[in-house]
């Protein structure tokens, strides 16, 4: 039987990782704090009931954050569909700003991540960034293992589409050419 751990140790081990995941999916500072607390609370309550082991705790806590993110993303999507023509115009302007060529690979990566569908983004971050196995990521998101692999493949392909054309460009393209004037 797997070892059970105290609440404090559990929180100390998990909190930085949960915080990183919540930031990576796109939550702002306030949402990160709420989501992390929610994840820890859920894992703690299951642990208190004796239903959780160290191995099972991580995907449970990640799952709370991932589901909160999916609900949040769905609400944003629904709100965007209800937008008035005037706010649509501002959304188009924002999209134009985002489409400006970003200066660094990390910026391109962030933009690439936000352009992925929410579920693909969540799977990619759970597996690649947080190191969850397909089984753990599947149970965190409530999907099947095969679907997990398919979503992951779609996310990786989408990210590659976003990042590779920029890598193919020479690093100085787009910058103004400066000439020494004597």
């Amino acid at each position, binding site marked *: 039987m797997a070892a059970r751990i105290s609440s404090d140790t559990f929180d100390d081990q998990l909190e930085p990782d949960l915080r990183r995941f919540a930031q990576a999916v796109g939550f702002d500072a306030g949402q990160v704090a709420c989501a992390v607390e929610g994840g820890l609370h859920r894992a703690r309550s299951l642990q208190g009931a004796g239903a959780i082991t160290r191995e099972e705790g991580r995907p449970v806590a990640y799952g709370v954050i991932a589901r909160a993110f999916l609900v949040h993303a769905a609400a944003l999507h629904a709100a965007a569909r209800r937008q008035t023509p005037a706010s649509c115009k501002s959304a188009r302007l924002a999209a134009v700003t985002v489409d400006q060529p970003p200066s660094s690979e990390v910026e391109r*990566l962030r933009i690439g991540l936000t352009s992925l569908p929410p579920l693909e983004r969540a799977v990619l971050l759970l597996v*690649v960034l947080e190191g969850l196995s397909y089984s753990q990521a599947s149970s965190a998101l409530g999907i099947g293992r095969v679907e997990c*692999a398919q979503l992951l493949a779609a996310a990786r392909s989408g990210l590659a589409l976003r990042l590779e054309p920029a890598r193919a460009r020479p690093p100085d393209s787009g910058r103004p050419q400066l000439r020494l004037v004597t």
Partner: protein
Amino acid sequence: MSDFGKPGQAPDADLCAYLDDECGPGQRRRADSALTQDPALARKLAVWRRNDSTLRAAFSAQTQPARAQNSTDPPIGPLESGGAQKRRMDLAIAAAFLAGALSAGGAFVVANLIAN
């Protein structure tokens, strides 16, 4: 595109499983064989691997400075005590008094010289 996975499963999903070490020995052998025969598939794997590294580096770089800053910053010293502040004020008053006395004395000497 090579179809090295189970029948009916998307090759890209199999490539993901290969990259994440989530496939069985048989599937891994088929993948190795497909990767040697299909340069496009090998390129795709290399791109995915590189993007994974960029992703991990981006977010570990984001979280590390805060931890590093905490560990390398010198500890902040204790605030000055009230006694030290009082001593500094006493010294300032004494210096002002001395300067005033010197200038008054000088003026007295000059006035006597003029009178004589």
